[in-house]
């Protein structure tokens, strides 16, 4: 009897084309010229009729590797759909383990089917005649498990005078720039933060109208320009400035980038609808600080000037 015998099927799914690895221990010294591996659906008993497992095909099987008893080749002439024969010049076996890996085996089609393999060793070279040794192994044609999950789309965005990096909080919505002066700039800041799992990332745009009092306006800077006290100007940027001293650099682990028109320190502009920042991949949070600049000329008509701005974050899923 072959000891310590096993069959490992690499892919046990129905109809899979896969490798079968047989391992066993030979405990005898007999002349062996062939081995047969007969697959049966009914039982492992050697003298019983063998019911062929449906769908099994061994006729294209290859002997990919052998250890222990070696020198075998596939006997194509005597191999059938359910009986694989390997042959060599008859040689006396040694006590010890052997392993045979067969590739290109087509599994049976019955899911959850138990298949028995009757292993026989013969002195002949065609697996006919008396058996010198034998043993049976078993495998099961199993089904796979599918695991699934759904990740919903998200665009997380917040705006306020101050916001937490992860948008867990946002405070304030009103900036008082004070009394405008011809001698120095008036400034203020607000913040926004954003993250998304959109494969295309997101954009953040700013909409609104420049500082207005009735019919009187403070002109918006159409192109990035430096602060000029005594000249009526309105603009914003997204950097840490020193002339005037206002703003901070963007923070956060995200990969968003600033639009060029608003990314130069000490240069300000405003055009409604402009994109302030964007990311072109899914990105973690970035927090951006917007610096607001207002200068007034001596000729600026008196009044209470105000402006309302809307931030719009867009992701395309």
């Amino acid at each position: 009897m072959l000891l310590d015998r096993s069959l490992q099927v690499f892919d046990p799914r129905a109809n899979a084309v896969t490798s079968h690895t047989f391992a066993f221990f030979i405990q005898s010294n007999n002349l062996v010229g062939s081995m047969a591996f007969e697959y049966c659906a009914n039982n492992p008993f050697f003298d019983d009729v063998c019911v062929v497992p449906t769908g099994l095909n061994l006729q294209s099987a290859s002997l990919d590797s052998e250890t222990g008893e070696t020198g075998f080749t596939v006997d194509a002439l005597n191999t059938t759909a359910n009986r694989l024969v390997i042959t060599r010049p008859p040689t006396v076996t040694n006590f010890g383990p052997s392993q045979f890996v067969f590739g290109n085996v087509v599994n049976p089609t019955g899911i959850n089917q138990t298949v028995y393999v009757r292993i026989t060793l013969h002195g002949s070279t065609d697996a006919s005649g008396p058996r010198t040794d034998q043993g049976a192994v078993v495998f099961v044609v199993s089904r796979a498990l599918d695991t699934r999950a759904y990740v919903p789309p998200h665009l997380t965005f917040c705006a306020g005078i101050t916001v937490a990096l992860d948008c867990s909080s946002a405070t304030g919505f009103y900036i008082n720039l004070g009394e405008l002066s011809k001698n120095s700039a008036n400034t203020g800041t607000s913040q926004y933060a954003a993250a998304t799992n959109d494969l295309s990332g997101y954009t953040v745009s700013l909409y609104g109208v420049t500082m207005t009092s009735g019919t009187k306006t403070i002109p918006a800077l159409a192109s990035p320009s430096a602060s000029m006290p005594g000249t009526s100007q309105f603009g914003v940027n997204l950097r840490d400035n020193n002339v005037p001293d206002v703003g901070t650099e963007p923070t956060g682990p995200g990969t968003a980038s600033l639009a060029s028109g608003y990314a130069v320190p000490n240069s300000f502009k405003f055009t409604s609808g402009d994109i302030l920042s964007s990311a072109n991949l899914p990105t973690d949070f970035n927090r951006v600080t917007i610096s607001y600049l207002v200068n007034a000329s001596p000729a600026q008509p008196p009044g209470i000037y105000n402006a309302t701005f809307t931030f719009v974050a867009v992701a395309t899923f």
Partner: protein
Amino acid sequence: MSTKYKKTLLERFRTAALWVKALILAGMGAIPMLSASLSRVYAAPVLPNREARVTTTQTGATFNITFEFDLPTGFANSIQSMEFEFCDQPLGTCTTTQTPTIPAASTVTQNGNWTNATAFGTYTRTNGDNGGTNNQIQVSRTQAANETTATTDRSISFTGLTNQSDPNESYYPRIRIYSDTGFTTLVAEGVVAQSTARQLTVNARVQERLDFCTGVSAVDDATTTLGADCAAVTANGLGNTIDIGVVDASQVCVSGPSNPCETDNTYNGVAMVRTNAFNGVVIDYFAEQNAGSGQLKVAGATCTDFFTTVTDQCFNAADSNSDYSNGANQQTFSAGTERFGMTVAGVNCGSTSAYTCDFSTGSYNLVRDTEYDGTGANTFGTSQGFAWDARGGTTGVDRIASSAGSSVKVVEDEALIMKFAATAGVTTPTGSYTVTSTYIATATF
């Protein structure tokens, strides 16, 4: 084996004596010879309660024989020599066609029921007094003190006899007890019987057995039965899909009835095995490759790597080393740090009846691999974390359980309750993610 001769043999002798009496009345001329024959049969008192026990009756086998007997009523003699003559017959001429072979040397032992403990140290094989060659054992000792009937069941044993080759053949050891050391003064005797016997051979075929199945179940512990066997598991109508649910960065979603991320498919994965393999069974799995990866992923998407990138449509696999240098190593999950993995929360014994199977006390045969042991103890859960080998191929086949290292390696319907877990990162792209895993049971007979 032993055969006791009490009244039966005596009754036969009495019967024979009656017939002889009749012959005497009928034919006076035969009297002297018959009288001599009767005198020879009853030359000494008969040993009561005598028996011969052998260690085997198998033909051709070597065996030991023990003779045990009591002493006749009123016995008050020394016993310094004994003969054991092996014959085909209990009386008369001795032939030896059915008798065992007597060894030239033997180990002689006696029990403690002798009045005098002096050993019968001299063993000799001789020809039988009534015929035969080398068919008689003679033992002797120097011990002039009397043996008495104060003790019973004296025995003496000999080793190394060999049964002859035919079964069902009887033979009769004739026991003669002498008070002197020279086998001269007969003080008691008796005959016992033994026989060779045909051996009975019982054949039975026990076929190699391996039942293995995977599926899903709402069972979420180690005691509730999954059904009688694999047939029940595969026929429960629940299919073979585990849904982890809606996964985001706010929590870790773990499959099963307590999963907060899913309300419909609240199932665990199940792998049940039954085998009579003497050397046990191992259970492995591999992740089916899709576009080159076995990660939990959007079908068809290309994964950048196994562990790092959080912007591709592939969940990073659970491996504490993040390099598979030592296979897939178990790690705990933190909400918002993208990961996917699996663990075996417990070994369900609810369908096992052939032996004591109790997960909570460690009494089970199918032992989880360390990297897929949910709690590291015999408690049901996932506190130790999860692992996942996404490599596929021969490299990515990972072991999750084995009975090969257990003292009892056969398994009856022990089932692994598998839990799948995932947590998304902030940037884990939206989409429907799937992975298929295949499980392999390999039994060594």
